[in-house]
């Protein structure tokens, strides 16, 4: 009995020591799909300070509104895990349905959306009560999720149905469906919610919709010298808050495209690691981080100079990424 107390005491102490050692801010978190781990990167030193064991096949990763917690899609464990970002411990999970791949948070901070890839469903979860509020029938292999900044509308893309499904967040009704090029992945609303950007991995394009009319406003295609067209596979998209730039990860082209959002011109292709996938900014958007699946690392891009400043080795198949600064 006494020994057990002692052991508990020691482990608590070590936990406390660990939490002290990881408390430097800001930090980036990266899910490693094939390692079932979460890499923690100190954004001051760009070193991996911790690697945490989490659920199986972790992919989508987002922070809670106050950044005290994060939600992890542990696809093969069929759950969304909640991790406390102060103690780096898993403190619970949300009822996600089977095979959650990606997640998005409503601006209200209490509603979370997840795509159940194997069941062609969008699940809506209320965080405080940990209840499933609704499940909405969508296309095959739902993937990309985006909630408008005003919180009124959200979209989900379906990879095999090649559609964007527009959902009213009040009624949970599917209000429209739009075809896009093959295998849509990521979706993002512009800061003013007037446009929606959707990447098509196999189609090799990014479609920009007018959110009012749900009509296609622009289509971006990419052309990288010395790279076969079908190796240019747009996946992650990120739009800058204050400057007219968007970044598009181009998968096995191993590049991130820099798009001027006023002219829709592609101004630069930044060479990063192999099979670049998802993207995240730091707080002031001076840095852009990319997860590079095949090379198992994270590239750190200076958004001013558009150069890669650092490459950080993480686990096998890094997938989701987010930066905590609070």
């Amino acid at each position: 009995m006494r020994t057990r107390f002692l052991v508990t005491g020691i482990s608590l102490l070590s936990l406390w020591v660990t939490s002290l050692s990881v408390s430097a801010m800001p930090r980036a978190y990266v899910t490693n799909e094939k390692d079932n781990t979460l890499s923690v990167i100190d954004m001051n030193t760009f070193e991996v300070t911790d690697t945490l064991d989490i659920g199986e096949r972790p992919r989508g990763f987002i922070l809670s509104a106050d950044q005290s917690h994060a939600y992890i899609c542990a696809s093969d464990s069929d759950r969304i895990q909640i991790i406390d970002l102060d103690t780096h411990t898993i403190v619970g999970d949300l009822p996600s349905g089977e095979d959650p791949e990606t997640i998005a948070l409503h601006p209200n901070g209490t509603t979370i959306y997840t795509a159940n890839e194997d069941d062609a469903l969008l699940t809506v979860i209320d965080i405080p009560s940990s209840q499933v509020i609704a499940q909405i029938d969508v296309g095959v292999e739902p993937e990309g999720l985006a909630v408008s900044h005003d919180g009124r509308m959200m979209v989900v893309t379906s990879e095999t149905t090649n559609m964007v499904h527009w959902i009213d967040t009040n009624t949970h009704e599917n209000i429209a469906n739009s075809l896009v090029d093959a295998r849509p992945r990521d979706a993002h609303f512009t800061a003013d919610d007037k446009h929606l950007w959707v990447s098509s991995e196999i189609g090799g394009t990014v479609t920009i919709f007018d959110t009012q009319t749900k009509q296609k406003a622009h289509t971006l295609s990419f052309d990288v010298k010395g790279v076969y067209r079908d190796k240019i596979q747009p996946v992650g998209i990120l739009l800058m808050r204050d400057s007219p730039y968007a970044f598009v990860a181009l998968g096995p082209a191993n590049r991130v495209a820099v798009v001027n959002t006023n002219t829709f011109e592609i101004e630069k292709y930044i060479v990063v690691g192999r099979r670049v996938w998802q993207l995240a900014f730091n707080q002031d958007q001076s840095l852009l981080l990319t997860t590079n699946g095949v090379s198992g690392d994270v590239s750190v891009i200076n958004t001013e100079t558009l150069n890669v400043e650092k490459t950080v080795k993480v686990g096998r198949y890094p997938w989701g990424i987010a930066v905590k600064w609070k």
Partner: protein
Amino acid sequence: MKKAKVWIGISTLLLSVSALHAHVHAQIQSGSKYKGQAEAQQNTTNMVYLKLKRPTPAGTPSYLISPTDEGIAGAEIGIEDANITGKFLGYSLTLAHINALDSAATDAITHAPVVLIDSPDAQYQEAVRSVVSINPSALVVNVASGKDTFRRMHCELNVLHTYPSYQMKTDALGQWLRTKRLSSVLTLRGAHESDEAYLDAFLRTAKKFKLNIVEKKTWQASFDLRRSAFSEIPLFTRTKKPYDAIFAADTQSQYAYSLPFNTHLIVPIMGSAGLKPLGWHFTHEQWGARQLQNRFKDKFSRTMNEVDFAAYAAIIAISTALQRSDSSDFKNNDSQMHESVTGTRLFNALVEGQLSIAAYKGRQLTFRKGTRQLRQPMALAHEEALVTHAPLSGFLHQLDELDTLGDATTTCKDAL
């Protein structure tokens, strides 16, 4: 401009029907599965899967006999995927299975714009002829034969091939051999005519990639190898000159399974054993393939093979065509094809329109105009893992890297 107009047409249609498709289920218990019911008007396209029996030669090891639902299972998964998409767009697909060309089959084929053919090579031509005599405009898709001469036949008919040609397979091997700097090859074949077709493709590959054929041998399947392979195979594979690799054509599983670790010179075996060039391998998981593999395994309790994939790809190609308007014969009509389906319209959209399909291979797949063969990467795999996908880097083509695999001629009618 034209494209934009078509798109607006489609999205207007979508907006008008989409409200009907909204399915919301409140308070669904975690773990329960929701199946949607489509209330909207659906245009149904009937398809037929014609599976003619493959005779199993005596002495075939039981574990090498194909699953009885081979191909059909792939088609069924394709139908499920297509119908989820179709429910948002107002179409659905049905699939009837037939095993013989009897009167019931005639009835089914008469009402089916699409017929998938899964036939032994010996009956393939007759099967195509019978189908088009019943339904002349039917789109026929070969989902199980690799014979190259079939790609130079039926030029006037609506015939497509989603199963890779032998030439695509052997060119993938040729690229691997060249990459590994192995240039002297011993070729083996069985007595079956399909083995001859597979070997012929390899010999054309050898010429193209300047490989040296050391010797060509034929296995006479006169006895069961399994108790005597250790003594028989070294004799069979002894040659005057050394070789770097062995290509074995054994479409009937009569001897190639005994080659690895048994040959006179211990070298890589490829073709029907060892390193196999395949349209699909169960270990492939990139580009979302893992999702398809999981869905397949959950439903059929076995792994997905290349005939299943060929059938799946055929269904997905049809589904993709049904979503689009047909620019080639509906120039001023923005309606989607599923509103009036014919085999000819589907064929034109896929071949003349070069409509591309996405099927978990990381590339847009299209049909070659000349041979009506689906362009696709080839998996190079052994029993336990995928080695890589061909085309391998460094093999270039002026138009499309995928055309380094197989017969990319632009004419159908010339002899091979």
